[in-house]
């Protein structure tokens, strides 16, 4: 048990990979065995990640916990260094939670080259977890890139008609961003020794040699020259903004989502996009506070454009999946708006909204995938009145629609409301545009629901559709439960976020809490 506790992060991260290696030795004709095995691996993967939630010390949620550190490449100063704080805890739980649902959802959807498919799913799971737990920039970068390959194959082999185009577009966009990110990382790596030489406390803690230690970069943030921060922020921005994706780098997203198999879309929307936002939270903001402050207007402007533009484009989509994909652009705009409000409310809401987006959009992609599996089309015009033949399906769809548009009692409301509070504290207009986004979001989602679920069921192909089976229910019910949990009682989530968020705010605005004492007392988690 002790061993497990000390190495829990590595075990959680590499568990799927170990499962993949076992999978490779299975006979590819034995599809049932492969399916059972993969489901077992990801489900146990979720179970072994649960202790993280219970063992996590909430009193010091801004400190890195479950830290493991070994020398990896000595000549480069790169270590195997993992650890999580409150922000990462939530993202890891999201990843291990969505993984089993995505894998389960592909049970009957994937009939072709089953073994490879599940091998890539497992590899992807390890890649994503690795990104979130890395505290060494070199290691982070390795995971960040590694994860591209399985996703590329998932889209390229098991995707829709334009899969080759979508897959290469996804790969190229992300890669262009990440190589610039690499240059930013290298710039930090080489500037460290010079700064450490002038500040003995850095040397005492992190040594004087060039390092990839993210904590060392956090500590040196206050000494970084403004000009340097400016450039590195720009390099990081390209890398992370493409991943989020922020306007105008979002064009790969609809293509990738529409062509990807359902499980691929769930993972893509649920987790992969969060890597971009996580990058801003973990690296851009705390390491480059001055640069961050300088670029706030640009970031917010892009976020607002994404909110409004994404919503408008979503409204006009004839294809259900594309609609949900564009709604992602809009929702991620919200996340970025809250984040760059750079106050406790905005950041809390932004992080919670990332989780919410994973839950609701993941569920919506599953819902679209279920109907696609039955009808082999996603065109909205093909459907209508489905609630008569698929009542359970229609109910869950309704719940998730409501969650997505931010109806109170459901998760989306909490996230959006907190973000709006944060935005309002900074600038009324930010909140006005954000509000417009919420209204538009309600419009396109409700319109989608109305066109597909209500009305008369006239299309003969839709007369005899089967309602959800047990397996499909099993993929959706957990999402519904979590949506209600966050909607009704979000305090446990805010509790792990409070301290890391306050620390972020303090980094960017030193003395924020002294200056805004009355406001600071109303930190969201405690009031609610």
């Amino acid at each position, binding site marked *: 048990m002790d061993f497990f506790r000390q190495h829990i992060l590595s075990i959680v991260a590499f568990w799927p990979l170990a499962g993949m290696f076992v999978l490779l030795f299975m006979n590819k004709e034995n599809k049932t065995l492969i399916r059972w095995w993969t489901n077992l691996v990801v489900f146990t993967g979720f179970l072994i990640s649960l202790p993280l939630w219970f063992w996590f010390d909430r009193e010091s949620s801004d400190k890195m916990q479950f830290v493991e550190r070994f020398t*990896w*490449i*000595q*000549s*480069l100063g790169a270590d195997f260094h993992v650890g999580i704080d409150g922000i990462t805890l939530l993202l890891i739980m999201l990843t291990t939670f969505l993984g089993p649902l995505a894998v389960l959802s592909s049970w009957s959807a994937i009939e072709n080259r089953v073994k*490879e498919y599940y091998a890539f799913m497992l590899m992807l799971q390890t890649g994503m977890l690795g990104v979130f737990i890395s505290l060494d920039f070199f290691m982070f*970068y*390795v995971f960040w*890139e*590694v994860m*591209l*390959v399985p996703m*590329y*194959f998932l889209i*390229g*082999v098991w995707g829709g008609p334009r*899969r*080759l185009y979508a897959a*290469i577009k996804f*790969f*190229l966009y992300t*890669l*262009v961003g*990440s*190589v*610039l990110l*690499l*240059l930013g990382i*290298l*710039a930090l*790596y*080489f500037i460290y020794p010079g700064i450490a030489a002038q500040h003995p406390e850095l040397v005492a803690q992190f040594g004087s040699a060039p390092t990839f230690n993210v904590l060392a970069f956090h500590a040196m943030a206050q000494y970084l020259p403004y000009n340097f921060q400016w*450039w590195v922020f720009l390099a990081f921005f390209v890398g992370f903004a493409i991943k989020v994706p922020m306007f105008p780098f979002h064009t790969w997203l609809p293509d990738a989502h529409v062509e990807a198999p359902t499980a691929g879309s769930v993972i893509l929307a649920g987790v992969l996009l969060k890597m971009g936002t996580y990058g801003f939270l973990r690296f851009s903001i705390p390491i480059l506070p001055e640069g961050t402050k300088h670029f706030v207007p640009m970031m917010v402007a892009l976020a607002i454009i994404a909110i409004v533009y994404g919503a408008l484009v979503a409204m006009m989509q004839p294809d259900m999946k594309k609609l949900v994909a564009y709604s992602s652009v809009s929702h991620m705009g919200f996340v970025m708006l809250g984040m760059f409000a750079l106050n406790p409310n905005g950041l809390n809401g932004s992080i919670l909204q990332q989780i919410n987006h994973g839950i609701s959009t993941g569920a919506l992609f599953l819902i679209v995938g279920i109907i696609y599996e039955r009808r082999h089309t996603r065109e909205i015009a093909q459907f209508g009145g489905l609630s008569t033949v698929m009542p359970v399906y229609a109910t869950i769809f309704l719940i998730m629609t409501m969650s997505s548009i931010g109806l109170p009692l459901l998760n989306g409301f909490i996230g959006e409301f907190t973000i709006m509070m944060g935005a309002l504290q900074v600038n009324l207009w930010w909140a006005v545009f954000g509000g417009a986004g919420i209204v538009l979001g309600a419009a396109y989602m409700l319109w989608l629901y109305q066109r597909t679920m209500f009305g008369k069921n006239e299309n003969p192909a839709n007369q005899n559709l089967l309602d959800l089976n047990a397996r499909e229910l099993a993929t959706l019910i957990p999402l519904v439960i979590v949506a209600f949990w966050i909607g009704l009682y979000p305090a446990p989530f805010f509790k792990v976020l409070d301290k890391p968020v306050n620390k972020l705010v303090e980094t960017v605005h030193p003395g924020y809490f002294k200056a805004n004492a009355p406001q600071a007392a109303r930190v969201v988690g405690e009031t609610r």
Partner: protein
Amino acid sequence: MGQFFNLQDLGAIAPELELMLFGMILLIADLLVENKKWLGFISLGGIAWSGYFLLRLHGIHVTAYSGLLVIDEFSWFFKLLFLVGAALAIIISLKYLDIEREHHGEYYALILFATMGMMFMAGAMDLITLYISLETMAIATYILVGFLRGNQRSNEASLKYFLLGAFSSGVLLYGMSLLYGIAGSTRFTDIAEALEQRPGSDPISMIALVALCAGLFFKIAAVPFHQWTPDAYEGAPTSITAYMSVAVKAASFAMMVRIFWFAILPLRPHWVLILTVVSILTMSVGNIAAMTQTNIKRLLAYSSISHAGYIMLGLIAGNSTELNPTGVTGIVMYLFVYTFTNIGVWAVVVALRRKDIIGEQVDDLNGLIYKHPTAAVLMLIFLLSLAGMPPTSGFIAKYYLFAGLIESDHSKLAVIAVLNAAVSIYFYLRIVVAMFMKESNEKTGLALSPGIVVALAVALIFTLWIGFYPDPFIHLAREAVFLS
């Protein structure tokens, strides 16, 4: 410095002498041995024996033949690389030559002679030695490129390569003669000293530099002197293409680094300018041209051009008087990594050549995942390594080159370079698409010969080992550039 020829000098060139000896033996044995495969094994034995002598010279730093040659860590490293490259090329030739029905003894002898030339090149500290060893390598390679004598493309490639190669050697020789005129000596050290004394932008040294660069750029296939590469790579027997793309390329770079570092370092501000322009052109033209190729040998030829562009970055990194240690380490590391990864790629291409299938089009790889899953997955790993994706060795190599640029404040060049690296994934992925996402029309199976299996295994082990745990190799590379 030993003033006279003595036994020690012979000891210093023992590895080269072994290769020459075995080359001679092979020529004679060719008359006696019926099954030519045995000649391949004899040549491998020769390489092994030469390698044994080389290993004994490890860590020894001597000057031989009164300063014509130097045995140092740099040359030691490259000699090892040439031997490995030659051995792997011979291993993948064994079956291939049978299929092409051109199995002759002189093939192996020529590879040994070319390798011997390369080994002298790496150690040359004198223009004459350098030039003679360069020609030894080049002439053997011209013949090898045209080795499929019944094949029109092979003959054409050989002739083109020979004509352009001879011309560029002439240009190079012109530059060398000017250097001799400046220094009154052919020794690198004397040349460096003499250039030190010259005024900043002395026209004579500029002409010498330009001629020298033109000749060297041809040898490493840098834009705008690259046109021979696709033709020669396409026409040559695939096993020789593999050999050229690793060993000949590495030797040319060893020569280039040697000259730029030891002979004309005083001209650094000028040649950095030239190299910067040429490197940007080489990366971009190589990558862009590779995108539209349908022949896999041509595609890889253009990819090798762009790799030459990256490697040059290692020479650019640094300030106005000195090279950047990270950058030079990057060159050595890159060539080391490139050798194994590239041999892996070419081994798969060689395996595609079957009884009556040419197997040179990208389409010939269609559906490889169904025909031979292992080959497809290995090819994927090698291609990702060429593209510089972690956690393969290619990433570590690119990392060093880019790090050298960032460390010495060449940020703009670094941005251009990384964008090129990112774009290059496009054409590597075209091969991946063919292998994994397309169905094949012809159903001829694919069987890997034992030689190919060995080469693939070696390539895979090093590609992943350097990718996951590069420490020992980084030490080796740093040692080669006198950093430890």
